[in-house]
C-alpha cells in the first residue's frame, strides 16, 4: 500500500537538515528556567552537608524573617503533603525500598539530601536565607565503599535497616555454569570496577509549577525526558486527580538518562505551589545538580569466563555489586538487569549465570545513564575476551571471530534468553579493520615493542551489541517493571493539507521533529515542510512513554508509520467516493490516489483533507475525520551492533595516554537520517571514551562528593576528543516495519572497553592486565609500577590500594 520503493524521491535515508535548529542557533529557546509567570516565587533547598546524620533540630525562624522570604518549610513540616518518591521497578518481591521523601524528615543519607526549603520573591533572597536556617546534626557512620557496604554486619546507610542489601536478583544458571568452568581448559577471572559517573547534561534541572486553585489544575514545566511518566507519578504521589495534572517538557537541554526520573524538587514544588497558591520556580545550580541529580554506573563486577583449549567459550559467570546510592530512584534497581542479558554479547556459549546485589550507600542515588546497565556489561565482556585471548595466546580479534554468531545463524537465540533478529558482525568488522589499517598498526606495534620505545602503541577492540528500543511490554512485565514499553502517535490531516504529528516520545536533542517529519512525509506523501511534530506536553500529547533506552524511533517511529498507514487507508474511502470507483481499484502512491488503469482519474491526500473538512459530499457510514491514533508495542528489542577499534599511544614513563585513531563501524539497520545518526554516534562515543579516560566520581571516606563541580569532574573538551572515523553497515532489523535499530546509546556502550583494551594491549608486555578507569596518567603509571614490582615474568592486577581511580585530569 505505502509503496516507498516505487517513489522516485524519499525523505527517509536523506541527511535532511534539522527543523529544530532555527530557534536554537538564534537563542529563541524556551528552557524551563526561562519561564517567568506573574507572581512567581522562587524556591531554594537547604541540602545536607553530611553524608549520614540524624537531624536533631531545625530552627527556621531567622530565615523566615529575611527580606523577600515568604515561607520556610522543613521536611517534617511537609511530610504529610506528599507520598514517598516513586521507584517503578521492584525487581524482586522482597526488595528493600525505604521511604524516600522529597525532603528528609529525621535522617539525612547523602550529601545533597534536601532538608528544608525557602520560598522567596526572588532567587537571590531564597538562596541568601538558607544561611539563616539552623540545623543540628548528630553524625552517623557514613557508608561509602560499595564492597564494604555489602559485607554482613557492615554499618548501614539507613539506620533503621540491618543490612545494606536492597535486593539479590539471580539469573538462573543452574549447575551448567559450574560444570562448564570445571571442565574448561582455560578459566579467566577478573574483578572490574565500573566507576561512578555524573551524566552532566549541560542544562541543569529546573522546575516551574503553576497552580490554578479554582479548578484544582496544576501545570508543571520540568527539564525532563519523561513528561508522561512524571504526570502519572505526580498524580499518584500527591493524590491529585490525574486529569488535573499537565506536565510540559519545553526545550530540554540534554538528558542522557539523568532526566528519566521523578525528582524530589518536582514533587516538592508541585506540593508547595498548590499549598501556597502561587507559581514557583526552582533551578539547580551546577554544583547542586551534581549532588542531587542521579549518578550512573558504579558497579564492581566479578566475572569468570571458561573456554576450551582452542578458544571456544563454554561459559560465563557474573557476580555483580551495584551501588544504588542512598535511595532507589525511578528505575535504579532495574539498571543492572538491563545488563544481565548483555554479558554474553555476540558470543555463542553453553552456560551463563548472573547474580546482582543492589546495595545502599550514603551517596547520591544512581539510575539510568546513557546505556544503563549495558555499557557495564559490554565493558566487562569485551575486557575479559581480551584477557582470555592473552591467556590462550590468541590474537583477540581471532578469538572473537571464533565465538561470534555468524550472519547465517540469525535469528539466534542467546544463552541469556534473547533472540537476536539480525546482524552481520563479519561485515562490520571487516570494514572497521580496513578503515583502521589494523594490520599496519599491529606491525607498527611490533616495531615499537622490539625497539623498546618508551611510547608504546595499543590496539583496542570492542565488537559490541546491545539490546535497546525499550521495550516489549510483556517482557517488562515479566521483569516486574511498573509500566509498559509501548509508544503512541497521532497523525492529523488539517483542512489545508498540512499535517500535525503528535508523538509520545519526548526529544531533548535527538531531532525527532525532523526525523518524524521525514517518516510522515514518505508514508503520507506530503511535503516535509508541511508537517509539524508536537510533543512534550501531556495536554497536547496525552499518551506516551517518552524518550530513553534508544526507543524513540524503533517504538515511537513505528507507531507513527502505522498511524500514517491508517490515515492513508481512511482517506482511500473518500478517494473512491470522489473518483467514483471501487475502493479495491484505488491505488495510493506518494500522496496521490488514482484509479487502477485510469491514471487520469486521481486526487491527492491534501484535496481529500479539504473535502473531509467541508463534509459536503462523502460516503455513507464513514467518519468525517482524517486523524489516526496508533499505539505500537514492540515484539522484541532491537540489537544494534558494531566494531569499534581504538589506537592509543601510551607513554610508559609518565602514564600519559593519547588516542591516536578511533574507528567505528556501527550497524543500526535502516537509517532515517544519516546526519542525525552520525551525530548520535559521535556524542555516544564522547561519553564512553570519557568514562575510559577522564571522568570518575570521587567521594572521601566521610561521603563528601569531591568531584562536585566542573572543575573537579572533568568533562572532555574539544581538545581532549579525538577525531572519529565512522561508517555503517546496514543489516535491517526484522522485528519492525522500518527495519531500524536504536542508536542513541550505541556509541557509549561500545567505546569504553575499546579504549581500555587499547591501553592494556599497549602495556601487556610489561605485565599489565588491567588499568583502572579513568585512565589518568596516575592510574596508568600505578598499573605499570604494580606490574613492575610484581617481578619479572609474572603478571598482576593493578591493586586498588596502589591505583585509586583519579577523578581529575593531570
Amino acid at each position: 500500500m505505502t509503496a516507498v520503493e516505487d517513489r522516485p524521491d524519499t525523505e527517509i535515508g536523506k541527511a535532511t537538515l534539522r527543523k529544530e535548529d532555527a530557534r536554537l542557533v538564534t537563542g529563541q529557546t524556551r528552557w524551563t528556567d526561562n519561564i517567568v509567570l506573574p507572581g512567581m516565587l522562587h524556591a531554594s533547598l537547604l541540602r545536607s552537608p553530611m553524608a549520614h546524620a540524624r537531624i536533631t533540630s531545625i530552627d527556621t525562624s531567622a530565615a523566615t524573617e529575611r527580606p523577600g522570604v515568604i515561607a520556610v518549610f522543613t521536611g517534617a513540616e511537609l511530610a504529610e503533603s506528599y507520598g514517598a518518591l516513586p521507584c517503578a521497578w521492584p525487581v524482586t518481591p522482597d526488595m528493600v525500598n525505604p521511604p524516600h521523601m522529597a525532603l528528609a524528615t529525621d535522617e539525612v543519607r547523602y550529601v545533597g539530601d534536601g532538608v528544608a526549603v525557602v520560598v522567596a520573591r526572588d532567587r537571590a533572597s531564597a538562596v541568601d536565607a538558607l544561611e539563616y536556617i539552623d540545623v543540628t546534626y548528630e553524625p552517623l557512620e557514613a557508608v561509602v565503599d560499595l564492597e564494604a557496604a555489602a559485607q554482613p554486619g557492615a554499618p548501614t546507610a539507613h539506620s533503621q535497616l540491618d543490612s545494606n542489601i536492597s535486593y539479590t536478583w539471580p539469573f538462573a544458571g543452574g549447575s551448567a555454569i559450574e560444570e562448564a568452568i570445571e571442565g574448561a581448559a582455560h578459566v579467566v577471572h577478573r574483578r572490574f570496577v565500573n566507576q561512578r559517573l555524573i551524566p552532566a547534561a549541560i542544562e541543569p534541572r529546573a522546575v516551574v509549577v503553576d497552580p490554578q486553585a479554582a479548578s484544582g489544575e496544576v501545570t508543571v514545566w520540568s527539564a525532563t525526558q519523561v513528561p508522561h511518566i512524571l504526570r502519572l507519578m505526580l498524580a499518584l504521589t500527591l493524590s491529585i486527580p490525574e486529569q488535573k495534572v499537565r506536565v510540559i517538557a519545553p526545550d530540554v537541554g540534554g538528558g542522557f538518562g539523568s532526566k528519566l526520573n521523578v525528582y524530589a524538587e518536582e514533587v516538592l514544588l508541585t506540593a508547595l505551589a498548590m499549598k501556597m497558591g502561587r507559581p514557583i520556580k526552582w533551578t539547580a545550580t551546577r554544583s547542586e545538580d551534581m549532588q542531587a541529580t542521579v549518578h550512573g554506573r558504579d558497579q564492581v563486577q566479578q566475572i569468570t569466563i571458561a573456554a576450551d583449549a582452542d578458544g571456544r567459550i563454554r561459559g560465563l559467570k557474573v557476580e555483580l555489586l551495584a551501588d544504588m546510592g542512598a535511595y532507589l530512584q525511578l528505575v535504579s534497581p532495574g539498571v543492572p538487569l538491563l545488563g544481565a542479558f548483555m554479558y554474553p554479547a555476540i558470543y555463542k556459549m553453553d552456560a551463563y549465570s548472573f547474580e546482582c546485589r543492589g546495595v545502599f550507600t550514603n551517596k547520591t542515588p544512581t539510575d539510568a545513564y546513557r546505556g544503563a546497565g549495558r555499557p557495564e556489561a559490554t565493558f566487562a565482556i569485551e575486557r575479559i575476551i581480551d584477557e582470555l585471548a592473552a591467556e590462550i595466546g590468541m590474537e583477540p580479534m581471532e578469538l572473537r571471530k571464533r565465538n561470534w554468531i555468524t550472519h547465517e545463524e540469525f535469528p539466534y537465540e542467546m544463552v541469556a534468553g534473547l533472540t537476536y533478529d539480525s546482524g552481520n558482525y563479519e561485515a562490520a568488522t571487516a570494514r572497521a579493520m580496513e578503515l583502521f589499517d589494523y594490520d599496519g598498526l599491529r606491525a607498527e606495534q611490533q616495531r615499537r615493542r622490539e625497539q623498546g620505545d618508551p611510547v608504546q602503541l595499543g590496539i583496542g577492540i570492542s565488537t559490541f551489541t546491545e539490546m535497546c528500543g525499550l521495550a516489549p511490554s510483556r517482557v517488562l512485565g515479566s521483569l516486574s517493571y511498573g509500566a509498559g514499553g509501548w509508544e503512541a502517535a497521532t497523525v492529523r490531516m488539517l483542512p489545508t493539507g498540512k499535517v500535525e504529528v503528535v508523538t509520545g516520545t519526548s526529544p531533548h536533542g535527538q531531532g525527532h521533529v525532523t526525523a518524524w517529519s521525514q517518516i510522515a512525509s514518505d508514508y503520507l506523501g506530503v511535503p516535509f515542510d508541511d508537517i509539524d511534530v508536537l510533543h512534550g506536553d501531556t495536554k497536547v500529547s496525552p499518551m506516551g512513554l517518552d524518550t530513553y533506552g534508544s526507543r524513540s524511533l524503533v517504538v515511537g517511529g513505528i507507531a507513527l508509520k502505522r498511524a500514517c498507514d491508517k490515515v492513508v487507508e481512511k482517506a482511500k474511502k473518500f478517494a473512491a467516493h470522489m473518483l467514483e470507483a471501487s475502493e479495491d481499484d484505488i491505488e495510493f502512491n506518494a500522496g496521490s490516489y488514482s484509479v487502477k488503469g485510469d491514471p487520469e482519474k486521481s486526487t491527492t491526500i491534501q484535496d481529500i483533507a479539504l473535502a473531509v473538512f467541508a463534509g459536503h459530499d462523502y460516503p455513507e457510514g464513514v467518519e468525517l475525520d482524517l486523524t489516526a491514533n496508533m499505539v505500537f508495542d514492540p515484539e522484541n528489542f532491537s540489537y544494534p551492533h558494531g566494531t569499534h577499534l581504538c589506537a592509543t599511544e601510551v607513554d610508559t614513563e609518565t602514564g600519559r595516554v593519547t588516542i591516536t585513531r578511533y574507528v567505528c563501524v556501527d550497524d543500526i539497520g535502516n537509517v532515517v537520517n544519516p546526519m542525525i545518526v552520525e551525530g548520535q554516534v559521535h556524542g555516544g562515543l564522547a561519553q564512553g571514551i570519557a568514562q575510559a579516560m577522564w571522568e570518575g566520581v570521587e567521594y572521601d571516606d566521610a561521603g563528601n562528593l569531591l568531584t562536585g563541580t566542573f572543575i573537579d569532574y572533568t568533562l572532555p573538551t574539544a581538545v581532549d576528543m579525538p577525531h572519529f572515523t565512522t561508517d555503517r553497515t546496514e543489516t535491517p532489523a526484522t522485528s519492525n516495519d522500518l527495519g531500524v535499530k536504536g542508536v542513541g546509546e550505541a556509541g557509549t556502550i561500545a567505546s569504553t572497553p575499546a579504549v581500555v583494551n587499547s591501553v592494556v594491549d599497549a602495556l601487556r608486555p610489561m605485565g599489565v592486565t588491567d588499568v583502572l578507569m579513568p585512565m589518568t596518567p596516575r592510574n596508568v603509571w600505578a598499573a605499570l609500577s604494580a606490574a613492575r614490582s610484581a617481578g619479572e615474568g609474572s603478571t598482576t592486577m593493578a591493586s586498588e590500594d596502589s591505583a585509586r581511580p583519579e577523578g581529575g585530569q593531570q
Partner: protein
Amino acid sequence: MAKISVSVDGTTYSDEVEPRTLFVHYLRETLGLTGTNVGCDTSNCGACTVLVDGRSVKSCTMLAVQADGAEVTTVQGLANGEWTPVQRAFHEKHGLQCGYCTPGMICAATSLLRQNPTPTEDEIRHGLEGNLCRCTGYQNIVAAVAQAAEEMQGATS
C-alpha cells in the same frame, strides 16, 4: 545599587543593579534575554558566552557593573536579517543537538574567527576549549567552525 548603561544587541539599557549581580543574570533576568544560558557555577562550561566589545566573554565571569558602557552582542543579536556564517554552519554541519551550549559555542566561535580567520582543526579545538558540549563529541562543531571560516574567507577575498 549602581547605575549602568549598556548596549545589548543594538539597544541601550540604563538600569540600577545590585553590585553583586552577575552580567549573565542581568541579561537573563533584568533584560529577559534568555537566549544566553547558564550551565555551571564555576565558569567552566561557557554556555553563557557573549561578545563584549567584540570579544568573547563568559558572562558569568563579569559583574553587571563591569558592563557599564560596553557594547554587547548575544546570540539573539548576531543575525542581522539573516543568520551569520557561523550560525548557518552550525545548522548545516549538525553542530548542535540539544542546543543548550550552542549560544555560547556560536559566540565563542565568532570571536575565534575574528582573531584567527584561518584556523587549523587544532586551533579550532583549542579556541573552543572553554566551551563544553555534552551532545556532539565536538566533531561537527569543529567542522562547522571550519566551514564558517572558509565561507567568511571566500566572502572577504
